[in-house]
């Protein structure tokens, strides 16, 4: 049985990786032909990049999760498929039309409803060292909040080449390890495609990007991560692995003090030096962001900032794994 599970794990991981790896170049060609390109503002010469990469990310997730569903007919896999697909639709609509700042959180809250309808949650929160707390009514609100939070956290960190997909690769593999540590092997298996899809997409998203994930890609990744956290019953651990992205959203919201889109910001938090490195803005009205704080001690290249964010992601991933081990310890 364990061997079967390992083989299925390898199979769905390969399907997730190969699907995105194979489809993305064609998607780049199609998007470029249709003039669905945006300017990469962090390049010295005018560089247009295809967007959105969400369709190939979703294709990888659906191909692997449907394969898994063929082996295990569980409502948990259905919840992943439906919620992630709905989040993709929300993101795709936002990619095609510029919508208000409140549209995404509200629409993403709606995409969490299948988790409730399928009943694939345990209505209590488990904390390391101290045990669990039963919150039946409050937990429903937590589900509704969780998907917009994880979706927007990944979307808000998608500001530089390769960051969203690289960050998601680290966070999702950490989540898989945590699920194994807490002995939730079924959901650990279902979480594998997220890491492999992110890793395959990173190949085309890293500096210099050939494609951007767009809202459809970022929200798809974030929503799947949130769904896994809920159905895997590792909400606290998942939140810890996501801390750099959560901090980025928190810094942004606490400095602008309202829910708005990044594109609505007039004063940019990051500017360019003459040699086109990134530099923190001196403008006091510009929002505080993770990238701006990283650049506070002086300019860096886009690639260097990305690697600092990856180090932060690895640090949070380590804390999440420690927390998962602490789940088994009670004081």
């Amino acid at each position, binding site marked *: 049985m364990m061997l079967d599970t390992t083989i299925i794990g390898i199979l769905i991981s390969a399907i997730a990786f190969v699907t995105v790896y194979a489809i993305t170049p064609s998607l780049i060609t199609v998007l470029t032909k249709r003039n669905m390109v945006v300017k990469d503002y962090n390049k010295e010469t005018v560089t247009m990049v295809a967007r959105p990469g969400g369709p190939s990310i979703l294709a990888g997730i659906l191909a692997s999760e449907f394969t898994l569903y063929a082996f295990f007919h569980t409502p948990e896999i259905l919840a992943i498929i439906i919620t992630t697909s709905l989040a993709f639709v929300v993101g795709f609509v936002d990619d095609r039309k510029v919508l208000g700042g409140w549209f995404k959180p509200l629409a993403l809250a709606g995409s969490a409803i299948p988790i409730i309808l399928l009943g694939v949650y345990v209505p209590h929160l488990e904390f390391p060292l101290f045990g669990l707390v039963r919150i039946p009514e409050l937990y429903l609100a937590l589900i509704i909040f969780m998907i917009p939070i994880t979706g927007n956290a990944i979307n808000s960190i998608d500001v530089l080449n390769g960051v969203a997909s690289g960050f998601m690769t680290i966070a999702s593999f950490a989540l898989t390890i945590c699920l194994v540590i807490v002995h939730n092997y079924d959901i650990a298996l279902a979480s594998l495609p997220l890491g492999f899809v992110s890793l395959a997409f990173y190949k085309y998203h890293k500096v210099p990007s050939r494609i951007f994930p767009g809202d459809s890609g970022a929200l798809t990744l974030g929503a799947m991560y949130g769904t896994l956290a809920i159905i895997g019953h590792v909400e606290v651990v998942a939140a810890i692995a996501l801390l750099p992205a959560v*901090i980025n959203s928190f810094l942004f919201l606490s400095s602008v003090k309202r829910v708005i889109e990044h594109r609505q910001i007039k004063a940019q938090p990051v500017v360019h030096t003459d040699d086109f490195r990134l530099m923190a803005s001196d403008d006091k009205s510009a929002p505080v962001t993770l990238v701006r704080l990283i650049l506070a001690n002086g300019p860096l290249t886009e690639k260097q900032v990305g690697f600092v964010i990856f180090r932060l992601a690895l640090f*949070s991933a380590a804390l999440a794994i420690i927390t998962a081990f602490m789940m088994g310890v009670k004081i």
Partner: protein
Amino acid sequence: MRGKPIFLYIFVMWTFIIGGGGLLVSIIAPLSIHGFGKFDDMVDSVVKASIAIILVLLWVLLMSKIKNWIFQKQIKH
């Protein structure tokens, strides 16, 4: 090392999550409210949910203060 204060901030956030969870599990969860007859369960839930929400708001406020303290130099810059 670049981003040192951010590593510190993440670590502080982590300890607050663990500590806050402990507070929730050890003190608030065992609370039991009686005297409302058949509404006991509902009142109990509402009170616990309210305390939890207040705790989250306090957590956000505290993290905001710590953010200003840790990143003072950077934000001024």
